[in-house]
């Protein structure tokens, strides 16, 4: 065993990263001392001056001032000032900067030379942020989307909700509107693997962070936001880049007086839509119908129905609208954001603070001493400080902290919204008005009834899940904090060779999360002996509680990340040959304090070297080579390292001489293509627990696997259980990607079109082996890198900008993303050989569900008996009015061999968005639509099934079953649509929306089938905004900027699906997405 050869890991722990650090500091020291020594070597003449921009006379920082014919040169400082010592035999200076036309100036006798550089129209602000640095926009040969931070300003405290439709190449949708749990799902160019971890790599200021951290970013703090999509832009991230990269950098300070900017917003939000439920009378009548039609006795007496109808005492005849009882119709949010930006000669700063406050829609009982509503406070502080240690050395310190303080119901808002539609409106009153003998009772008298037909609780005990009691019995108090410290050092190494830079970045961040759950045990009562004449009743306690609050510690998480990178880059032009190069080395370590096993507690590490080389000739022909070389601790030594190269070329046709004639119509035309390999290390069930595939995982003292012996059963010997067999061959997922793109600008850039076609083959996807017969007797499933998926698609964007003569301007933008995929290799039985080729996954989209083909409902029991065997006994478990499935292999029974892919993928194939902004003088107007297409979801027949119990036992992916509801019973509510359209003996419609009613789960009808598939596409008016800019770039009332705006979000939705908000998909019972009306003020000082 070579595991014996790995001594004292703890001492090796930091040696890798510490070396990076040590050398960097050493280098810095050398450079600093060197600068001091070298001054005055050629001290013949000193020239100083200032380089300014023609637009606003501001200084241009970073302009290279070079003595012609030498390698001597300096850069201008942040104010554009420079000072250079020139040998006596030279008299020409060259001023050059990216985005400006290079100028040569003869100094003559002057000792002060101030010049104004002319902007290079073609290259102006055409620098884009890519992995570990920037490159000229023209030099981009791959596919990436840069988003203007302004486009991300939506009235929500979650940035991820702003992405849908605004970024070409990003598939995004939101499945819950609960504050604190409303992150959108998003995938760069869709999904290309079936391992369920398809989220992109998220980098904020170069550091890998989570979706939650991205969600908390303030758009005001964002300098640039890019989505990297193709191999040339992502291969540099090696084994982390295959799912695409979201790259965000935050603002840094600039030279000048402090500029204060404040934004205040206040919004009102309400659900986009709620599910329409049937009234209590219909509920009872149909529940009786459901019992009778299945040959059982009716649940409700006519007396009870009549009493409810006459609205007699609501304690005795409850008729509860759970939505109304549990939730408010609207709620408010406040957001406050402030930042200061400025700086002097030696240092620049950007400091931002923000506070957001979100209220949930949940009601609290006035008799409760605490609030159960969701109450989310978020605080954020960011300080980015740049300091020039020497003219060539810049130090940047970034400090950042976010604090979330969330109070809310014990089970979360999604669970409560679920509970509202999954509870009977008539079984019990949520709270029973205390009778006279109970006046002064020190607890809330929650209602609850005895269990019915065969509950597991005893007959004289409360048996039902009372959502109101669940909501009021306690709350959770959670806190999440991210603290991040980052040091960056940039050293210019022009002395070695011009254009060479060394950069070092060290980062440490910790995330901590904890929740305290405080709750009491509710008391339940039942109404008995209701006397109609006197309107009196007596109360029986059905379950004793405990008034005092108890604490149950909730989920806790504590993790720490250390990250270091050192980069050397080089930019230089030789006549028409422009070159740029980058080599970066990085080390990352992640530690989790809440591991439950030894192997999960060990640090996760990533080590790598990456590089990028760009070359272009005359800004016309471009070439780029990238590579990433990564190692991870998760794999065996021989498979630990992965090499991921990529190549790209581009041709800027519009820069060709022959093209100039067309220049007025077509202002820019570029073709790009790239090809390469990228890796994905997010394999296995989850990054933390499924690790070390090359080692077996064994519990040598498992209580569950042991045995007991002896007369008194006292000799207890623990056993051995195996949860993983060693597989040294497991390694990365590999993606082979290709991209072809075109940029076309027309009419002097008034119209800009970008289109990209891409395809990808993801191979070595970790998959559970299905070829291994169970007779082999393996305790743990074997996994190996066998799967492969092919993905392809198109994304593009179209921008239109036009300013009319009389201060009227118009911009319009549209994005479109199409992405599809299919299983290429998937280990599965040879279905074709057994006559069921349709069961095979090969060729299907990985996100398509599988199920039976529902033909229609059975006409009667007789037909069910004469049809292929389904689920249970025909005529007994299913019959007339139940779903009839298609027996595809004609073997006389509906089995798993009759399952086929049904519907479209659950991850949409198409996302699009379009909108326009226009302004006239001080008024601006903005509208944005967003949509999804080519997607399906299925209605869950168990969760939506009227009258059935859906909280005992476990439904997959259900917020409610996580709760303490287990063991209690529920009766689902009745959705109006089902009440209106179901099969019944009076109306035996074989195409009714809902089959024959039942009060118990009907296994036959609950199968995943086409019966429940719905089209998930929709288009919605995502945002509408009107703004008035009162002050701009002038000083008035002490302000330099003032804009007031009114925004509406999620205002209208068009979809063929009407039961709930289609964006929620199969999670229609979740906390609804919000329609928001927002008033904001932005002020600059």
């Amino acid at each position, binding site marked *: *065993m070579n595991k014996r050869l*790995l*001594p004292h*890991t703890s001492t*090796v722990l930091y*040696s*890798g990263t510490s070396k*990076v650090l040590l*050398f960097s500091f050493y*280098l810095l020291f*050398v450079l600093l001392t060197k600068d001091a020594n070298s001054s005055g070597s050629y001290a013949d003449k000193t020239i100083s001056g200032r380089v300014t921009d023609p637009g606003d006379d501001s200084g241009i920082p970073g302009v290279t001032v070079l003595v012609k014919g030498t390698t001597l040169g300096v850069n201008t400082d942040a104010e554009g000032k420079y000072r250079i010592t020139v040998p006596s035999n030279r008299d020409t200076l060259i001023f050059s900067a990216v985005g400006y036309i290079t100028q040569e100036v003869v100094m003559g006798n002057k000792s002060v030379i101030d010049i104004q550089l002319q902007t290079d129209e073609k290259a102006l602000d055409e620098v884009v942020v890519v992995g570990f640095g920037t490159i000229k926009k023209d030099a981009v040969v791959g596919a990436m989307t840069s988003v203007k931070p302004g486009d991300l300003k939506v009235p929500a405290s979650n940035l991820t909700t702003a992405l849908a439709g605004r970024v070409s190449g990003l598939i995004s949708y939101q499945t819950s509107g609960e504050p604190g749990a409303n992150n959108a799902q998003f995938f760069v160019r869709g999904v290309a693997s079936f391992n369920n971890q398809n989220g992109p790599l998220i980098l904020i200021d170069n550091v890998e962070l989570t979706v939650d951290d991205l969600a908390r970013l303030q758009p005001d703090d964002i300098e640039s936001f890019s989505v990297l999509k193709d191999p040339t832009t992502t291969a540099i991230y090696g084994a982390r880049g295959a799912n695409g990269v979201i790259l965000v950098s935050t603002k840094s300070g600039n030279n000048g007086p402090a500029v204060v900017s404040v934004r205040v917003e206040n919004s009102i939000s309400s659900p986009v839509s709620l599910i329409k439920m049937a009234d209590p009378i219909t509920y009872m009548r149909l529940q009786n119908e459901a019992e009778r039609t299945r040959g059982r006795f009716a649940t409700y007496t006519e007396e009870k129905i009549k009493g409810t109808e006459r609205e007699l005492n609501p304690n005795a005849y409850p008729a509860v609208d759970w939505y109304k009882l549990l939730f408010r119709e609207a709620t408010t949010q406040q957001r406050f954001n402030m930042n200061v930006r400025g700086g002097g000669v030696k240092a620049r700063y950007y400091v931002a603070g923000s506070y957001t406050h979100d209220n949930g829609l949940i009601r609290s009982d006035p008799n409760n001493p605490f609030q159960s509503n969701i109450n989310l406070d978020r605080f954020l502080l960011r300080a980015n400080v740049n300091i020039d240690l020497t003219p060539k050395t810049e130090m940047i310190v970034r400090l950042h902290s976010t604090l979330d303080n969330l109070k809310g119901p014990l089970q979360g808002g999604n669970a409560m919204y679920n509970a509202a539609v999954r509870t009977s409106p008539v079984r019990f009153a949520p709270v029973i008005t205390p009778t006279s003998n109970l006046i002064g009772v020190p607890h809330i008298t929650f209602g609850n009834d005895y*269990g019915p*037909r*065969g509950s597991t*609780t*005893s*007959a004289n005990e409360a048996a039902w899940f009372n959502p109101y009691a669940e909501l009021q019995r306690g709350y959770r108090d959670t806190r999440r904090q991210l603290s991040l410290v980052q040091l960056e050092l940039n050293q210019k*190494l022009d*002395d070695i060779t011009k254009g060479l830079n060394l950069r070092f970045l060290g980062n440490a961040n910790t995330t901590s999360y904890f929740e305290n759950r405080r709750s009491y045990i509710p008391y339940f009562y039942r109404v008995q002996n209701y006397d109609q004449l006197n309107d009196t009743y007596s109360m029986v306690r059905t379950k004793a509680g405990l008034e005092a609050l108890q604490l149950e510690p909730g989920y806790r998480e504590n993790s720490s990340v250390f990250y270091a990178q*050192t980069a050397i880059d080089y930019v230089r032009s030789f006549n028409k040959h422009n070159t740029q190069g980058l080599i970066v*080395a990085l*080390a990352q370590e992640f530690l989790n304090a809440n591991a439950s096993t*030894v192997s999960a507690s*060990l*640090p996760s*590490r990533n*080590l790598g070297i990456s590089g990028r080389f760009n070359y272009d000739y005359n800004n016309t022909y471009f070439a780029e080579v990238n590579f990433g070389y990564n*190692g*991870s*601790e998760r794999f065996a030594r021989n498979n630990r390292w992965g090499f991921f190269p990529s190549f790209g070329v581009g041709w800027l046709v519009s820069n060709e001489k022959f093209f100039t004639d067309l220049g007025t119509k077509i202002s820019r035309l570029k073709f790009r293509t790239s090809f390469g390999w990228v890796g994905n290390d997010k394999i296995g069930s989850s990054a933390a627990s499924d690790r070390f595939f090359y*080692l*077996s*995982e*064994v*519990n040598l003292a498992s209580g569950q*696997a*042991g*045995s*007991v*012996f*002896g*007369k*008194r059963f006292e*000799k207890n*010997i*623990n*056993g*051995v259980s*195996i949860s993983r*067999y*060693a597989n040294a061959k497991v390694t990365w997922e590999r993606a082979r990607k290709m991209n072809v793109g075109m940029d076309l600008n027309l009419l002097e850039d008034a119209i800009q079109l970008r289109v990209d076609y891409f395809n990808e083959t993801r191979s070595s996807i970790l998959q559970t*082996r299905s*070829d291994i*017969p*169970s*007779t*082999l*007797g393996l305790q743990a499933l074997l996994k190996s890198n066998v799967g492969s998926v092919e993905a392809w698609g198109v994304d593009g964007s179209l921008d239109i900008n036009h300013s009319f003569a009389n201060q009227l301007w118009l911009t319009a933008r549209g994005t479109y993303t199409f992405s599809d995929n299919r299983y290429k290799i998937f280990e599965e*039985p*040879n279905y074709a050989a057994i006559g069921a080729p349709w069961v095979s996954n090969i060729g299907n989209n990985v996100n398509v569900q599988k199920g039976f083909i529902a033909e229609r409902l059975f006409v009667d029991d007789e037909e069910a008996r004469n049809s292929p065997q389904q689920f249970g006994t025909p005529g007994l478990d299913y019959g007339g009015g139940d779903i009839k499935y298609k027996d595809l292999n004609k073997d006389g029974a509906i089995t798993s061999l009759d399952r086929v892919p049904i519907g479209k993928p659950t991850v949409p194939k198409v996302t699009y968005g379009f909108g326009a902004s226009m302004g006239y003088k001080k008024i601006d107007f903005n509208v944005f639509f967003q949509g999804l297409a080519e997607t399906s979801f299925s209605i869950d027949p168990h969760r939506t099934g009227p009258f059935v119990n859906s909280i005992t036992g476990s439904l997959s992916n259900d917020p409610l079953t996580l709760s303490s509801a287990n063991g209690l019973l529920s009766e689902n509510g009745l959705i109006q649509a089902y009440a209106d359209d179901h099969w019944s003996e009076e109306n035996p419609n074989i195409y009714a929306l809902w089959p024959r009613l039942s009060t118990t789960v009907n296994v036959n009808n609950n199968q995943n089938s086409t019966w429940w598939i719905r089209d998930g596409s929709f288009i919605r008016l995502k945002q509408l905004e009107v703004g008035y800019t009162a002050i701009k770039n002038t000083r008035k009332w002490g302000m330099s900027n003032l804009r007031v705006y009114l925004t509406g979000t999620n205002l209208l939705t068009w979809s063929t699906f009407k039961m709930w908000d289609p964006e929620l998909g199969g999670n229609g019972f979740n906390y609804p997405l919000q329609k928001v009306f927002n008033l904001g003020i932005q002020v600059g000082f």
Partner: protein
Amino acid sequence: MFNRYKTVFLALLISLTGGSCGKFLDVVPSNIAVIEEAFETRDNAERFLATLYNYLPPFVSDLNPAFTASDEIAVNENISRNWAGHILSRGGQNKVAPLLGYWGNTGSVSNLFIALRDCNIFLENVDKPFDILPSEQERWTAEAKILKAYFHFYLMRMYGPIPIIRRNIEVSEGLEAVRVSRDPVDQVTDYIISLLDEAIENPELPLTITDVGAELGRLTKVAAYALKARVLVTAASPMFNGNTDYAAFTNKDGTQLFSTAYDESKWTKAAEACKQAIEIAEGNGHHLFRFDKNEMPGSSDSTYTKLTVRGALTEPWNNELLWGGSNSTFTPGFQGRAQAKINPLLTAESRESTSSYWSPPLRIAEMFYSSHGVPISEDKTYNYANRYQTSTAKEDHKHYIKEGKITANLNYNREPRFYGFLGFDNGIWEGHGQTEKNSFFVEAKKGQRAGILDATRYSLSGYFTKKLVHYEAVQSAPNSGYSAERYPFPIIRLADLYLLYAESLNEIGQTAEAHVWIDKIRERAGLKGVVDSWRDFSISSAKPLNKEGLREIIHQERMIELCFEGQRFWDLRRWKKAEALMNSTIRGWNIQGEDTESYYNIIVSGRYQFSSRDYLWPLSESDILANPNLVQNPGW
């Protein structure tokens, strides 16, 4: 200058790419647990052995089909309707995720092939620990072999032909190697017997357990002999011996999986094995259990007999037990399922400490003999036609039925085992901390303390499985507790062996010898021998004298004596009687009745279903798909 930088850069690059990188990624400490470590020390190997015992199917559990899927014990639907066994007994087996299937990973119980793999791992590595004693290594090897034999046997009983797992196949051997096919049942039997013989011949396997405090429950030679007898009897039984129903059941290559020609020598071998097992057991201190009169002085013989027949099962580790499941015990919780609520001081709350829902259907109550030791339908003196009517208990029945109370005629004039094994309305419940004189009795009508009061904790037939309750178990009234002595599940006991021997002897024509062994069981149960009993009281008086007649008698004797012990379920299958007996209605008294008149009416509360395909469990579809060399069982 220039050189200086160059050096620095080179150093930097080397530091990042060079030697330290490898180490940076070596985060795993040397002593993280891996499989090899399980055999580094004796103690670890012992844990592995404990793991093998852990793979014994859960006998005392809802997951034991012989309890929950048999027709001996019915449980009200409110509690049991989602139990796999319940669905199974109603004909609800399926092949997508077979219920209680021990073959494969789709069911609710574990895949026994995992146990077989671990047996082989253990057998291959048990010599590895540096500190293991040779004698220990030998003994453990023998134990592992017996377990390996038992797991094969368990699978064979369920599935018929199974692949024999002689050694472990590794994934690396390739697809064709891992795609095993099924071996004919005769070969499986031979293999099981060869494993047991190897264990029996092992000198380090003890005859009986001497370190009772630490080792009871471990396997012994006595257990190995008894198991061998059980395996050979099973293999000789109609299900596996000349079963022509499976004539067409072959592997894909045509191999016949069931022998279709009856072979009497299988019974001869079985009889020999039974004889040997009995001799070894009796030679090592095992005998039929008798209740010690000093434990409950002054009681009548009737009561002693009741306590004897009950104690044969419930007295922990009594001398009749040849192999007890120390991992599967009748805990107080399980005994509570059999316990009727009889303490007169019970309150609404304290009643809930027992669940009382294991209910023998009326047919099981009718199965017991009359007081003359013959079936009630054959007893000339028994008023069979009026058995559902009622009468008042007189003094002569005072140890069985509360004097002066009314109960059904069916409950009168029955053999002692009827009274020892069953609780019923107005029946005496001996023990429970009371002397004979003060014995509690069951009051099972609605509204009474043992009757239906809540949704789940009640008997659906009005009968209770008293046999499973240790006589000292007490449900106390004020503190709402239930205490009961825990006892091991009898995987095999001596009475079982006697009856297997009687059965085997009868099948090879040694009728008179068979009488000896069945009569030992009857004598203990307070009954006369079969010949005398039938001659004096039965309408078919010569029944015990011929092979067919005696076969019926032995079958019934076995179903009575081993009632509620998880035997009937398998016996009915090996006798091929399941179709005839298991398609039956579940009948009981009208438990909703509040008085004698309404209570003593027969109510049907369900129906057992069994079709010919249910004799063998289905293989799951996914197993058939993963291994094309496997054939599905007939009918599935």
